[in-house]
């Protein structure tokens, strides 16, 4: 019975080679985040002023974009969501949607109370 159950739960997870590939991708994405910061505000900003001025308006968006992909790779491959039962993906996805709604709702609520930021232009 136990063996049946063990077999029942087995899903083809990624290979060790795939885990190494994902680790390299995660490392590169983290390095890109730090390099982005260094170009926009850190030690590289004076020597790369042109690129810095182009990237600076998009700093937050680019960081969130890089973080999203790191999150995705960990969830899909290391947490095995790509291979596991889709009910688990739905459970996690639903929680993330609610969490995102909570963050947006709280930000809007408190920023609104600070005095209509779309009129003052300041948070």
């Amino acid at each position, binding site marked *: 019975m136990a063996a049946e159950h063990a077999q029942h739960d087995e899903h083809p997870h990624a290979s060790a080679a795939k*885990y190494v590939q994902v680790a390299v991708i995660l490392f590169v994405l983290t390095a890109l985040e730090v390099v982005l*910061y260094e170009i926009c505000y850190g030690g590289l900003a004076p020597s790369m002023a042109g690129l810095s001025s182009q990237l600076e308006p998009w700093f937050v968006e680019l960081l969130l974009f890089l973080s999203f992909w790191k*999150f995705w790779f*960990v969830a899909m491959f290391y947490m095995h969501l790509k291979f596991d039962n889709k*009910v*688990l993906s739905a*459970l996690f996805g639903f929680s993330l949607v609610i969490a995102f709604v909570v963050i947006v709702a709280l930000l809007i609520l408190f920023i609104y109370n600070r005095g209509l930021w779309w009129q003052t232009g300041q948070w």
Partner: protein
Amino acid sequence: MSSAAMDHGHSAGGHHTSLPIDNRKLAIWTFIGSECLFFATLISTFLIYRGQSVSGPGPKDIFEVPLVTGGTAVLLFSSFFVVMALNGAQEGNRKKLLTWLSLTVLCGMFFAGMQVYEFMHFYHLGLGYSTNLFSASFYTLTGFHGAHVTMGTLWLATLLKDAIKGNLPPEKSLNLEIAALYWHFVDVVWIIIFPVVYLMSLGN
């Protein structure tokens, strides 16, 4: 009790629900779902109080990017180490399991140590818990994350002890998989905290 009912009861005792998922795995994913909401409120609080402190020190006075980047890399590598350990456990490769799991526990200890050092350093620079809005929200968010890392490290250390004693055979690899899921969750939370709390606070 009817035979069908007894069968059902036996099945439930064998960790299975009507879904083809072990109920321990379902439970850890449900727990992770609730943790998403917990950290969402803490991250929201940090963002709401961002730039609202009337007195220093602020993020630009104290944050050190190289130290935190090192900690981030260690945590990311620990996620890789734990999946390799799980791979070893599922294959029944004891040497692989022990090597990678030991490295994971060491990474967890390093990260927790890094955070303790960081907190002490900030405290000596004048950033107490109640110094300003930034300090309160920063310590609360990263402190809770650090507590999760510590719990995860202890959890993995108990599994390492089992593995050393030979009590983690392939048929019990789900025990490690569940702990690894928690560990990866702690990692993905840091994937959000690192840019949102550290890098964005240092930007304009």
